[in-house]
Protein backbone atom coordinates (compact mmCIF):
# COMPACT_ATOMS: atom_id res chain seq x y z
CA UNK A 1 0.00 0.00 0.00
CA UNK A 2 2.76 2.40 1.01
CA UNK A 3 4.64 1.33 -2.10
CA UNK A 4 1.75 2.39 -4.34
CA UNK A 5 1.40 5.64 -2.44
CA UNK A 6 5.03 6.50 -3.09
CA UNK A 7 4.75 5.65 -6.77
CA UNK A 8 1.75 7.93 -7.08
CA UNK A 9 3.50 10.69 -5.14
CA UNK A 10 6.54 10.36 -7.42
CA UNK A 11 4.43 10.58 -10.56
CA UNK A 12 2.58 13.63 -9.32
CA UNK A 13 5.83 15.35 -8.39
CA UNK A 14 7.31 14.53 -11.77
CA UNK A 15 4.32 16.09 -13.49
CA UNK A 16 2.47 12.91 -14.38
CA UNK A 17 -0.78 11.52 -13.10
CA UNK A 18 -1.61 7.92 -12.49
CA UNK A 19 -5.19 7.61 -13.64
CA UNK A 20 -6.12 4.01 -13.25
CA UNK A 21 -9.90 4.24 -13.62
CA UNK A 22 -11.29 3.33 -17.03
CA UNK A 23 -13.99 5.93 -17.51
CA UNK A 24 -17.14 5.27 -19.52
CA UNK A 25 -16.63 7.77 -22.32
CA UNK A 26 -20.26 7.58 -23.44
CA UNK A 27 -21.26 9.21 -20.12
CA UNK A 28 -19.54 12.40 -21.25
CA UNK A 29 -21.80 12.75 -24.28
CA UNK A 30 -25.45 13.74 -24.71
CA UNK A 31 -27.88 11.31 -26.33
CA UNK A 32 -29.57 14.23 -28.00
CA UNK A 33 -29.11 17.97 -28.00
CA UNK A 34 -31.16 20.82 -29.50
CA UNK A 35 -32.99 18.45 -31.83
CA UNK A 36 -29.90 16.50 -32.86
CA UNK A 37 -30.01 12.78 -32.11
CA UNK A 38 -27.34 10.16 -31.68
CA UNK A 39 -27.59 8.24 -34.95
CA UNK A 40 -25.99 4.84 -34.58
CA UNK A 41 -24.10 2.70 -32.16
CA UNK A 42 -21.01 4.32 -30.75
CA UNK A 43 -17.69 3.01 -31.98
CA UNK A 44 -14.80 2.37 -29.65
CA UNK A 45 -11.17 1.92 -30.67
CA UNK A 46 -8.10 1.00 -28.70
CA UNK A 47 -4.42 1.01 -29.66
CA UNK A 48 -4.86 -2.14 -31.75
CA UNK A 49 -7.99 -1.07 -33.60
CA UNK A 50 -7.43 2.67 -34.02
CA UNK A 51 -5.78 1.99 -37.40
CA UNK A 52 -9.13 0.72 -38.63
CA UNK A 53 -10.62 4.11 -37.90
CA UNK A 54 -7.99 6.67 -38.91
CA UNK A 55 -5.34 4.54 -40.60
CA UNK A 56 -1.81 5.89 -40.29
CA UNK A 57 -3.08 8.95 -38.43
CA UNK A 58 -3.44 6.65 -35.42
CA UNK A 59 0.30 6.86 -34.82
CA UNK A 60 0.06 10.48 -33.69
CA UNK A 61 -2.19 9.45 -30.80
CA UNK A 62 -0.24 6.29 -30.06
CA UNK A 63 2.92 8.38 -29.80
CA UNK A 64 1.19 10.12 -26.88
CA UNK A 65 0.19 6.98 -25.01
CA UNK A 66 -3.34 6.80 -26.41
CA UNK A 67 -5.69 4.62 -24.36
CA UNK A 68 -9.01 4.51 -26.23
CA UNK A 69 -11.52 6.66 -28.09
CA UNK A 70 -15.27 6.85 -28.49
CA UNK A 71 -16.70 7.99 -31.80
CA UNK A 72 -20.30 9.12 -31.98
CA UNK A 73 -22.38 10.63 -34.79
CA UNK A 74 -25.30 13.01 -34.42
CA UNK A 75 -27.90 13.77 -37.05
CA UNK A 76 -30.87 16.07 -37.50
CA UNK A 77 -33.69 14.78 -39.64
CA UNK A 78 -31.39 12.10 -40.97
CA UNK A 79 -29.39 14.55 -43.04
CA UNK A 80 -26.82 16.79 -41.43
CA UNK A 81 -24.11 15.02 -39.50
CA UNK A 82 -21.82 15.88 -36.65
CA UNK A 83 -18.88 13.68 -35.68
CA UNK A 84 -17.62 13.62 -32.11
CA UNK A 85 -14.56 11.86 -30.77
CA UNK A 86 -13.31 11.79 -27.21
CA UNK A 87 -9.79 10.42 -26.91
CA UNK A 88 -8.79 9.11 -23.50
CA UNK A 89 -5.06 9.79 -23.50
CA UNK A 90 -4.42 8.19 -20.13
CA UNK A 91 -3.28 11.40 -18.44
CA UNK A 92 -3.57 15.13 -18.82
CA UNK A 93 -0.01 15.58 -20.05
CA UNK A 94 -0.63 13.42 -23.08
CA UNK A 95 -3.98 15.07 -23.76
CA UNK A 96 -2.29 18.44 -23.65
CA UNK A 97 0.51 17.19 -25.92
CA UNK A 98 -1.83 15.98 -28.66
CA UNK A 99 -3.72 19.25 -28.45
CA UNK A 100 -0.54 21.27 -28.99
CA UNK A 101 -0.34 19.79 -32.50
CA UNK A 102 -3.47 21.68 -33.58
CA UNK A 103 -3.19 24.90 -31.59
CA UNK A 104 -2.94 27.97 -33.79
CA UNK A 105 -4.09 30.55 -31.27
CA UNK A 106 -4.57 30.78 -27.52
CA UNK A 107 -8.20 30.15 -26.65
CA UNK A 108 -9.92 28.72 -23.59
CA UNK A 109 -13.54 28.76 -24.73
CA UNK A 110 -13.71 25.05 -23.98
CA UNK A 111 -11.83 22.84 -21.57
CA UNK A 112 -8.27 23.80 -20.69
CA UNK A 113 -7.50 25.03 -24.17
CA UNK A 114 -9.36 25.02 -27.45
CA UNK A 115 -8.86 25.57 -31.13
CA UNK A 116 -11.92 26.86 -32.96
CA UNK A 117 -12.83 26.61 -36.61
CA UNK A 118 -16.06 27.54 -38.33
CA UNK A 119 -16.99 23.87 -38.55
CA UNK A 120 -14.88 22.24 -35.86
CA UNK A 121 -13.97 22.57 -32.19
CA UNK A 122 -10.93 20.83 -30.76
CA UNK A 123 -10.10 21.03 -27.08
CA UNK A 124 -8.43 19.22 -24.20
CA UNK A 125 -9.44 18.79 -20.59
CA UNK A 126 -8.11 16.49 -17.89
CA UNK A 127 -7.05 13.28 -19.69
CA UNK A 128 -9.23 13.87 -22.75
CA UNK A 129 -8.70 15.29 -26.19
CA UNK A 130 -12.00 16.15 -27.83
CA UNK A 131 -12.98 16.75 -31.43
CA UNK A 132 -16.44 17.99 -32.50
CA UNK A 133 -16.81 18.44 -36.24
CA UNK A 134 -19.68 19.43 -38.48
CA UNK A 135 -19.47 17.16 -41.50
CA UNK A 136 -21.70 19.19 -43.78
CA UNK A 137 -20.92 22.74 -42.71
CA UNK A 138 -24.59 23.78 -42.31
CA UNK A 139 -25.32 26.78 -40.11
CA UNK A 140 -27.40 24.64 -37.76
CA UNK A 141 -24.56 22.15 -37.36
CA UNK A 142 -22.07 24.95 -36.76
CA UNK A 143 -24.20 26.18 -33.87
CA UNK A 144 -24.77 22.69 -32.50
CA UNK A 145 -21.09 21.78 -32.32
CA UNK A 146 -20.75 24.59 -29.78
CA UNK A 147 -23.55 23.10 -27.69
CA UNK A 148 -22.00 19.65 -27.82
CA UNK A 149 -18.54 20.96 -26.93
CA UNK A 150 -20.03 22.84 -23.99
CA UNK A 151 -21.87 19.72 -22.81
CA UNK A 152 -18.70 17.63 -22.91
CA UNK A 153 -16.71 20.36 -21.19
CA UNK A 154 -19.28 20.45 -18.36
CA UNK A 155 -19.35 16.65 -18.14
CA UNK A 156 -15.63 16.46 -17.43
CA UNK A 157 -15.50 17.62 -13.85
CA UNK A 158 -11.75 17.38 -13.34
CA UNK A 159 -8.88 19.36 -14.75
CA UNK A 160 -5.38 18.10 -15.39
CA UNK A 161 -1.80 19.11 -14.74
CA UNK A 162 0.45 20.54 -17.43
CA UNK A 163 3.85 18.99 -18.19
CA UNK A 164 6.44 20.10 -15.65
CA UNK A 165 8.99 20.93 -18.35
CA UNK A 166 6.78 23.84 -19.43
CA UNK A 167 7.94 25.76 -16.39
CA UNK A 168 11.49 26.08 -17.70
CA UNK A 169 10.77 27.92 -20.93
CA UNK A 170 11.12 31.71 -20.79
CA UNK A 171 8.02 33.82 -21.40
CA UNK A 172 9.78 36.79 -22.97
CA UNK A 173 9.45 36.59 -26.75
CA UNK A 174 7.58 33.29 -26.59
CA UNK A 175 4.92 32.66 -29.24
CA UNK A 176 2.50 31.01 -26.81
CA UNK A 177 0.45 29.06 -29.33
CA UNK A 178 3.57 27.53 -30.88
CA UNK A 179 4.49 25.47 -27.81
CA UNK A 180 4.58 21.79 -28.73
CA UNK A 181 4.94 19.15 -26.04
CA UNK A 182 6.05 15.62 -26.96
CA UNK A 183 7.94 12.55 -25.81
CA UNK A 184 8.41 10.71 -29.10
CA UNK A 185 11.32 11.38 -31.48
CA UNK A 186 8.99 11.70 -34.48
CA UNK A 187 8.18 15.28 -33.48
CA UNK A 188 11.71 16.63 -33.04
CA UNK A 189 11.66 18.38 -36.44
CA UNK A 190 8.20 19.89 -36.09
CA UNK A 191 9.37 23.50 -36.06
CA UNK A 192 12.91 23.31 -37.38
CA UNK A 193 14.94 20.51 -38.91
CA UNK A 194 17.27 19.13 -36.24
CA UNK A 195 17.95 15.49 -37.03
CA UNK A 196 16.48 12.44 -38.68
CA UNK A 197 17.96 10.24 -36.03
CA UNK A 198 17.07 10.14 -32.37
CA UNK A 199 20.36 11.70 -31.33
CA UNK A 200 18.81 13.14 -28.17
CA UNK A 201 17.45 9.78 -26.97
CA UNK A 202 13.88 11.02 -26.76
CA UNK A 203 11.46 8.46 -25.39
CA UNK A 204 8.44 8.32 -23.14
CA UNK A 205 10.64 8.96 -20.11
CA UNK A 206 11.60 12.39 -21.45
CA UNK A 207 9.51 15.54 -21.61
CA UNK A 208 10.21 17.76 -24.60
CA UNK A 209 9.13 21.24 -25.60
CA UNK A 210 9.61 23.00 -28.90
CA UNK A 211 8.60 26.63 -29.20
CA UNK A 212 8.94 29.65 -31.45
CA UNK A 213 10.43 32.88 -30.18
CA UNK A 214 10.52 36.37 -31.62
CA UNK A 215 8.54 37.67 -34.55
CA UNK A 216 8.29 36.15 -37.99
CA UNK A 217 11.16 38.24 -39.34
CA UNK A 218 13.45 37.32 -36.48
CA UNK A 219 12.39 33.82 -35.57
CA UNK A 220 14.28 31.46 -33.32
CA UNK A 221 13.31 28.11 -31.88
CA UNK A 222 13.86 26.64 -28.43
CA UNK A 223 14.12 22.94 -27.69
CA UNK A 224 13.92 21.93 -24.02
CA UNK A 225 14.18 18.32 -22.88
CA UNK A 226 13.93 17.01 -19.35
CA UNK A 227 15.58 13.63 -18.76
CA UNK A 228 15.04 11.21 -15.94
CA UNK A 229 18.63 11.52 -14.75
CA UNK A 230 21.62 13.79 -15.18
CA UNK A 231 23.51 10.88 -16.75
CA UNK A 232 20.82 10.55 -19.45
CA UNK A 233 21.10 14.26 -20.15
CA UNK A 234 24.89 14.03 -20.41
CA UNK A 235 24.70 11.17 -22.89
CA UNK A 236 22.23 13.07 -25.06
CA UNK A 237 24.33 16.23 -24.95
CA UNK A 238 27.44 14.35 -26.04
CA UNK A 239 25.66 12.79 -28.98
CA UNK A 240 24.22 16.12 -30.02
CA UNK A 241 27.63 17.74 -29.72
CA UNK A 242 29.18 15.16 -32.06
CA UNK A 243 26.66 16.04 -34.76
CA UNK A 244 26.37 19.77 -34.29
CA UNK A 245 29.91 20.80 -33.64
CA UNK A 246 32.71 20.92 -36.17
CA UNK A 247 35.06 22.88 -33.94
CA UNK A 248 36.39 21.13 -30.89
CA UNK A 249 37.04 24.43 -29.13
CA UNK A 250 33.50 25.73 -29.47
CA UNK A 251 31.20 23.45 -27.57
CA UNK A 252 27.66 24.70 -27.44
CA UNK A 253 27.76 27.19 -30.27
CA UNK A 254 27.55 26.86 -34.04
CA UNK A 255 27.30 29.45 -36.78
CA UNK A 256 25.28 28.18 -39.71
CA UNK A 257 26.04 29.00 -43.30
CA UNK A 258 22.85 31.08 -43.55
CA UNK A 259 24.21 33.33 -40.80
CA UNK A 260 21.98 32.02 -38.01
CA UNK A 261 23.25 30.62 -34.73
CA UNK A 262 22.66 27.45 -32.83
CA UNK A 263 23.45 27.39 -29.11
CA UNK A 264 23.00 24.39 -26.84
CA UNK A 265 23.81 23.27 -23.37
CA UNK A 266 23.04 20.81 -20.61
CA UNK A 267 21.99 21.98 -17.19
CA UNK A 268 21.28 19.44 -14.47
CA UNK A 269 19.00 16.88 -16.15
CA UNK A 270 17.94 19.24 -18.93
CA UNK A 271 19.13 19.72 -22.48
CA UNK A 272 18.44 23.02 -24.22
CA UNK A 273 19.00 24.09 -27.79
CA UNK A 274 18.32 27.41 -29.47
CA UNK A 275 18.12 27.29 -33.26
CA UNK A 276 18.01 29.84 -36.06
CA UNK A 277 18.89 32.76 -33.78
CA UNK A 278 19.84 35.89 -35.68
CA UNK A 279 22.77 36.61 -33.39
CA UNK A 280 25.12 34.87 -31.03
CA UNK A 281 23.93 37.11 -28.20
CA UNK A 282 20.29 36.31 -28.81
CA UNK A 283 20.99 32.59 -28.81
CA UNK A 284 23.05 32.72 -25.64
CA UNK A 285 20.57 35.01 -23.87
CA UNK A 286 17.68 32.65 -24.49
CA UNK A 287 19.71 29.73 -23.18
CA UNK A 288 20.74 31.69 -20.11
CA UNK A 289 17.18 32.73 -19.34
CA UNK A 290 16.17 29.10 -19.46
CA UNK A 291 18.95 28.09 -17.09
CA UNK A 292 18.04 30.94 -14.74
CA UNK A 293 14.46 29.71 -14.58
CA UNK A 294 15.61 26.27 -13.54
CA UNK A 295 17.86 27.65 -10.84
CA UNK A 296 15.36 30.17 -9.54
CA UNK A 297 12.56 27.63 -9.36
CA UNK A 298 14.75 24.82 -8.08
CA UNK A 299 13.57 22.55 -10.89
Amino acid at each position, binding site marked *: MFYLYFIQLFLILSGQQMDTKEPDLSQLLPLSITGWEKTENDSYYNEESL*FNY*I*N*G*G*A*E*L*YISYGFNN*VISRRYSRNGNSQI*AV*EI*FDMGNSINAYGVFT*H*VREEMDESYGQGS*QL*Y*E*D*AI*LFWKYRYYV*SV*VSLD*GSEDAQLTIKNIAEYIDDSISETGELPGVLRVIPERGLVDESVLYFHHP*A*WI*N*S*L*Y*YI*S*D*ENILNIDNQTGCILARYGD*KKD*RSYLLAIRYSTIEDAKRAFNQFY*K*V*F*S*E*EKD*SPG*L*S*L*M*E*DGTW*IAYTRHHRYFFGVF*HASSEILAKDLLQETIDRIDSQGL
Partner: protein
Amino acid sequence: MLKKITRRSLLKKSALATAAGALYLNFPYPLFGNGSGQKTPVVLIRDENVMDESRKFNPGVMKEMLNQALIRLTKTKNAGEAWKKLINPEDVVGIKSNVWNYLPTPKELEMAIKEGVMSAGVPEERLSIRDRGLLDDPVFTGGTALINVRPMRTHDWSGVGSLIKNYITFVRKPSMYHPDTCADLATLWKLPFVEGKTRLNILVMMTPLFNGVGPHHYNKKYTWEYKGLLVGFDPVAVDSVGIRILQEKRREFFDEDRPIKPPVKHIFLADTRHHLGTADPAKIDLIKLGWDKDILV
Protein backbone atom coordinates in the same frame (compact mmCIF):
# COMPACT_ATOMS: atom_id res chain seq x y z
CA MET B 1 36.32 32.98 -35.10
CA LEU B 2 33.98 30.10 -35.56
CA LYS B 3 34.02 28.03 -38.67
CA LYS B 4 30.59 28.07 -40.26
CA ILE B 5 28.77 24.79 -40.03
CA THR B 6 26.75 23.79 -43.06
CA ARG B 7 23.42 22.10 -43.27
CA ARG B 8 25.04 19.80 -45.79
CA SER B 9 27.53 18.64 -43.21
CA LEU B 10 24.75 18.02 -40.71
CA LEU B 11 22.83 15.94 -43.17
CA LYS B 12 25.87 13.91 -44.07
CA LYS B 13 25.91 12.80 -40.47
CA SER B 14 22.29 11.73 -40.64
CA ALA B 15 20.55 8.67 -41.97
CA LEU B 16 19.22 10.52 -44.96
CA ALA B 17 22.69 11.39 -46.20
CA THR B 18 22.27 13.88 -49.03
CA ALA B 19 18.64 13.13 -49.66
CA ALA B 20 16.55 15.55 -47.77
CA GLY B 21 17.99 18.99 -48.10
CA ALA B 22 16.25 20.71 -50.90
CA LEU B 23 12.88 19.43 -49.83
CA TYR B 24 13.05 20.05 -46.10
CA LEU B 25 11.99 23.40 -44.93
CA ASN B 26 14.68 25.38 -43.16
CA PHE B 27 17.08 24.06 -45.78
CA PRO B 28 17.65 26.94 -48.15
CA TYR B 29 20.55 25.31 -49.95
CA PRO B 30 20.43 22.68 -52.67
CA LEU B 31 22.10 19.61 -51.26
CA PHE B 32 21.70 17.07 -53.99
CA GLY B 33 24.60 16.23 -56.22
CA ASN B 34 24.88 17.82 -59.63
CA GLY B 35 24.27 14.73 -61.72
CA SER B 36 24.73 15.24 -65.41
CA GLY B 37 22.30 12.57 -66.55
CA GLN B 38 19.06 13.13 -68.37
CA LYS B 39 16.38 14.91 -66.38
CA THR B 40 13.16 13.20 -65.36
CA PRO B 41 10.11 14.84 -66.92
CA VAL B 42 7.15 15.87 -64.81
CA VAL B 43 4.24 17.76 -66.35
CA LEU B 44 2.30 20.28 -64.28
CA ILE B 45 -0.90 21.29 -66.01
CA ARG B 46 -3.47 23.73 -64.62
CA ASP B 47 -6.77 25.07 -65.89
CA GLU B 48 -8.78 27.67 -64.00
CA ASN B 49 -12.02 26.34 -65.53
CA VAL B 50 -11.65 22.77 -64.27
CA MET B 51 -14.03 23.47 -61.39
CA ASP B 52 -16.76 25.91 -60.52
CA GLU B 53 -17.15 28.01 -57.38
CA SER B 54 -18.62 25.07 -55.47
CA ARG B 55 -15.63 22.97 -56.53
CA LYS B 56 -17.68 20.82 -58.88
CA PHE B 57 -15.42 19.49 -61.61
CA ASN B 58 -15.95 20.00 -65.32
CA PRO B 59 -15.38 16.53 -66.84
CA GLY B 60 -14.46 17.87 -70.28
CA VAL B 61 -11.81 20.22 -68.94
CA MET B 62 -10.45 17.50 -66.65
CA LYS B 63 -10.10 15.07 -69.56
CA GLU B 64 -8.45 17.67 -71.74
CA MET B 65 -5.95 18.51 -69.01
CA LEU B 66 -4.99 14.86 -68.64
CA ASN B 67 -4.68 14.34 -72.37
CA GLN B 68 -2.58 17.46 -72.90
CA ALA B 69 -0.25 16.37 -70.12
CA LEU B 70 0.11 12.91 -71.67
CA ILE B 71 0.77 14.27 -75.15
CA ARG B 72 3.60 16.34 -73.75
CA LEU B 73 4.93 13.57 -71.56
CA THR B 74 4.94 10.95 -74.30
CA LYS B 75 6.00 13.38 -77.03
CA THR B 76 3.13 12.34 -79.26
CA LYS B 77 0.78 14.33 -81.49
CA ASN B 78 -2.58 13.49 -80.00
CA ALA B 79 -4.26 11.79 -77.05
CA GLY B 80 -4.94 8.57 -78.95
CA GLU B 81 -1.26 8.12 -79.74
CA ALA B 82 -0.30 9.03 -76.19
CA TRP B 83 -2.54 6.38 -74.63
CA LYS B 84 -1.33 3.75 -77.11
CA LYS B 85 2.22 4.54 -76.10
CA LEU B 86 1.34 3.81 -72.49
CA ILE B 87 -1.08 0.90 -72.75
CA ASN B 88 -1.29 -2.14 -75.04
CA PRO B 89 -4.60 -3.72 -76.09
CA GLU B 90 -3.54 -6.94 -74.32
CA ASP B 91 -2.97 -5.21 -70.99
CA VAL B 92 -4.99 -5.86 -67.86
CA VAL B 93 -5.10 -2.45 -66.19
CA GLY B 94 -5.61 -1.57 -62.54
CA ILE B 95 -6.32 2.09 -61.92
CA LYS B 96 -5.23 2.61 -58.33
CA SER B 97 -7.39 5.37 -57.00
CA ASN B 98 -7.92 6.86 -53.53
CA VAL B 99 -11.21 7.02 -51.63
CA TRP B 100 -10.31 9.18 -48.62
CA ASN B 101 -13.61 10.83 -47.69
CA TYR B 102 -12.51 14.41 -47.66
CA LEU B 103 -10.31 14.39 -50.73
CA PRO B 104 -10.91 11.41 -53.00
CA THR B 105 -9.60 10.98 -56.52
CA PRO B 106 -12.18 12.88 -58.60
CA LYS B 107 -14.62 10.58 -60.41
CA GLU B 108 -14.26 12.80 -63.48
CA LEU B 109 -10.55 12.02 -63.57
CA GLU B 110 -11.12 8.31 -63.06
CA MET B 111 -13.51 8.36 -66.02
CA ALA B 112 -11.01 10.24 -68.18
CA ILE B 113 -8.37 7.63 -67.40
CA LYS B 114 -10.78 4.79 -68.06
CA GLU B 115 -11.74 6.26 -71.43
CA GLY B 116 -8.08 6.71 -72.30
CA VAL B 117 -7.21 3.13 -71.41
CA MET B 118 -10.17 1.85 -73.43
CA SER B 119 -9.14 4.04 -76.36
CA ALA B 120 -5.88 2.08 -76.39
CA GLY B 121 -7.88 -1.10 -77.02
CA VAL B 122 -8.42 -2.50 -73.51
CA PRO B 123 -12.00 -3.75 -73.03
CA GLU B 124 -13.85 -2.67 -69.91
CA GLU B 125 -13.77 -6.13 -68.35
CA ARG B 126 -9.96 -6.00 -68.30
CA LEU B 127 -9.73 -2.85 -66.24
CA SER B 128 -10.65 -1.99 -62.70
CA ILE B 129 -10.72 1.22 -60.67
CA ARG B 130 -10.39 0.88 -56.93
CA ASP B 131 -8.54 1.76 -53.75
CA ARG B 132 -9.62 -0.93 -51.28
CA GLY B 133 -9.83 -4.68 -51.80
CA LEU B 134 -7.00 -4.81 -54.30
CA LEU B 135 -5.85 -8.22 -53.12
CA ASP B 136 -9.28 -9.66 -53.87
CA ASP B 137 -9.43 -8.18 -57.37
CA PRO B 138 -7.80 -10.33 -60.09
CA VAL B 139 -7.23 -7.25 -62.23
CA PHE B 140 -4.85 -5.97 -59.55
CA THR B 141 -3.33 -9.28 -58.51
CA GLY B 142 -2.92 -10.65 -62.02
CA GLY B 143 -2.77 -7.46 -64.04
CA THR B 144 -0.05 -6.27 -66.35
CA ALA B 145 -0.34 -2.51 -65.89
CA LEU B 146 -1.08 -0.03 -63.13
CA ILE B 147 -2.06 3.62 -63.29
CA ASN B 148 -1.52 5.37 -59.96
CA VAL B 149 -3.75 8.36 -59.24
CA ARG B 150 -4.47 10.22 -56.01
CA PRO B 151 -4.70 13.71 -54.49
CA MET B 152 -1.83 15.09 -52.45
CA ARG B 153 -2.46 15.94 -48.82
CA THR B 154 -0.64 16.24 -45.57
CA HIS B 155 -0.65 13.24 -43.27
CA ASP B 156 -0.17 12.95 -39.51
CA TRP B 157 2.49 10.24 -39.68
CA SER B 158 4.03 10.00 -43.15
CA GLY B 159 4.09 13.77 -43.68
CA VAL B 160 2.06 13.55 -46.87
CA GLY B 161 -0.24 11.14 -48.61
CA SER B 162 1.81 10.60 -51.75
CA LEU B 163 1.86 8.53 -54.92
CA ILE B 164 4.46 6.31 -53.31
CA LYS B 165 2.17 5.75 -50.34
CA ASN B 166 -0.88 5.11 -52.50
CA TYR B 167 0.11 1.44 -52.95
CA ILE B 168 -0.27 0.80 -49.20
CA THR B 169 -3.57 -0.99 -49.88
CA PHE B 170 -1.61 -3.72 -51.64
CA VAL B 171 -0.81 -5.02 -48.15
CA ARG B 172 -3.18 -6.42 -45.56
CA LYS B 173 -1.42 -4.81 -42.59
CA PRO B 174 -0.41 -1.24 -43.46
CA SER B 175 0.96 -0.62 -39.96
CA MET B 176 3.94 -2.82 -40.91
CA TYR B 177 5.12 0.19 -42.91
CA HIS B 178 4.72 2.73 -40.08
CA PRO B 179 8.14 2.51 -38.36
CA ASP B 180 10.27 5.65 -38.52
CA THR B 181 7.30 7.67 -39.78
CA CYS B 182 6.79 5.45 -42.81
CA ALA B 183 10.39 5.91 -43.96
CA ASP B 184 10.44 2.84 -46.21
CA LEU B 185 7.15 3.07 -48.05
CA ALA B 186 9.04 2.76 -51.33
CA THR B 187 9.44 -0.95 -50.63
CA LEU B 188 5.75 -1.29 -51.49
CA TRP B 189 6.85 -0.85 -55.08
CA LYS B 190 8.84 -4.08 -54.86
CA LEU B 191 5.77 -6.16 -54.05
CA PRO B 192 5.07 -8.87 -56.64
CA PHE B 193 1.73 -7.37 -57.66
CA VAL B 194 3.34 -3.98 -58.14
CA GLU B 195 6.95 -4.15 -59.27
CA GLY B 196 7.53 -2.89 -62.76
CA LYS B 197 3.86 -2.48 -63.62
CA THR B 198 3.22 1.22 -63.14
CA ARG B 199 2.83 2.99 -66.46
CA LEU B 200 1.68 6.38 -65.23
CA ASN B 201 1.52 8.45 -62.04
CA ILE B 202 -0.98 11.26 -61.60
CA LEU B 203 -0.88 13.45 -58.51
CA VAL B 204 -4.14 15.35 -58.21
CA MET B 205 -3.51 18.96 -57.18
CA MET B 206 -7.02 20.29 -57.62
CA THR B 207 -7.67 21.29 -53.99
CA PRO B 208 -4.65 20.00 -52.07
CA LEU B 209 -4.66 19.83 -48.27
CA PHE B 210 -1.60 21.67 -47.00
CA ASN B 211 -2.22 21.34 -43.26
CA GLY B 212 -4.18 18.79 -41.26
CA VAL B 213 -5.89 19.15 -37.89
CA GLY B 214 -7.76 16.84 -35.55
CA PRO B 215 -8.51 13.14 -35.87
CA HIS B 216 -10.11 13.65 -39.28
CA HIS B 217 -7.00 15.55 -40.38
CA TYR B 218 -9.11 17.81 -42.55
CA ASN B 219 -10.41 21.32 -42.56
CA LYS B 220 -11.44 23.11 -45.73
CA LYS B 221 -9.62 26.18 -44.47
CA TYR B 222 -6.38 24.38 -45.27
CA THR B 223 -7.21 23.55 -48.88
CA TRP B 224 -7.04 25.83 -51.87
CA GLU B 225 -8.09 25.75 -55.50
CA TYR B 226 -4.81 25.07 -57.24
CA LYS B 227 -6.59 23.36 -60.15
CA GLY B 228 -3.67 21.27 -61.26
CA LEU B 229 -2.48 17.80 -62.18
CA LEU B 230 1.09 16.57 -61.86
CA VAL B 231 1.80 13.77 -64.30
CA GLY B 232 4.89 11.67 -64.81
CA PHE B 233 6.49 8.25 -65.07
CA ASP B 234 8.60 8.61 -61.94
CA PRO B 235 6.45 8.64 -58.76
CA VAL B 236 9.28 10.04 -56.66
CA ALA B 237 9.81 12.97 -59.01
CA VAL B 238 6.10 13.73 -59.18
CA ASP B 239 5.74 13.54 -55.38
CA SER B 240 8.82 15.69 -54.97
CA VAL B 241 7.27 18.48 -57.04
CA GLY B 242 4.01 18.08 -55.13
CA ILE B 243 5.76 18.59 -51.80
CA ARG B 244 7.44 21.74 -53.03
CA ILE B 245 4.05 23.16 -53.94
CA LEU B 246 2.59 22.25 -50.54
CA GLN B 247 5.54 23.77 -48.74
CA GLU B 248 5.31 26.98 -50.73
CA LYS B 249 1.61 27.18 -49.94
CA ARG B 250 2.35 26.70 -46.24
CA ARG B 251 4.95 29.45 -46.37
CA GLU B 252 2.48 31.75 -48.10
CA PHE B 253 -0.42 30.92 -45.78
CA PHE B 254 1.46 31.07 -42.47
CA ASP B 255 3.75 33.84 -43.65
CA GLU B 256 6.83 31.95 -42.45
CA ASP B 257 8.51 28.58 -42.78
CA ARG B 258 6.32 25.82 -41.39
CA PRO B 259 7.88 22.42 -42.07
CA ILE B 260 5.51 19.62 -42.94
CA LYS B 261 5.31 17.53 -39.79
CA PRO B 262 6.66 14.99 -39.52
CA PRO B 263 9.18 15.47 -42.35
CA VAL B 264 8.40 13.54 -45.50
CA LYS B 265 11.15 10.98 -45.14
CA HIS B 266 9.62 8.36 -47.37
CA ILE B 267 9.96 10.40 -50.53
CA PHE B 268 13.62 11.29 -49.95
CA LEU B 269 14.46 7.71 -49.04
CA ALA B 270 12.60 6.42 -52.08
CA ASP B 271 15.38 8.17 -53.97
CA THR B 272 18.53 7.59 -51.93
CA ARG B 273 17.83 4.33 -50.13
CA HIS B 274 15.46 2.50 -52.46
CA HIS B 275 16.38 4.04 -55.83
CA LEU B 276 12.78 4.12 -57.00
CA GLY B 277 13.22 7.47 -58.72
CA THR B 278 14.62 10.92 -58.18
CA ALA B 279 13.49 13.46 -55.60
CA ASP B 280 16.18 15.92 -56.59
CA PRO B 281 14.66 19.09 -58.08
CA ALA B 282 17.83 19.61 -60.08
CA LYS B 283 17.25 16.32 -61.87
CA ILE B 284 13.60 16.99 -62.67
CA ASP B 285 12.48 18.67 -65.87
CA LEU B 286 9.30 20.39 -64.72
CA ILE B 287 7.14 21.17 -67.74
CA LYS B 288 4.46 23.74 -66.97
CA LEU B 289 1.33 23.92 -69.08
CA GLY B 290 -1.76 26.11 -68.88
CA TRP B 291 -2.84 28.53 -66.17
CA ASP B 292 0.17 29.93 -64.34
CA LYS B 293 -1.36 32.27 -61.75
CA ASP B 294 0.02 31.60 -58.23
CA ILE B 295 1.78 28.51 -59.53
CA LEU B 296 4.13 28.37 -56.49
CA VAL B 297 6.81 26.31 -58.20
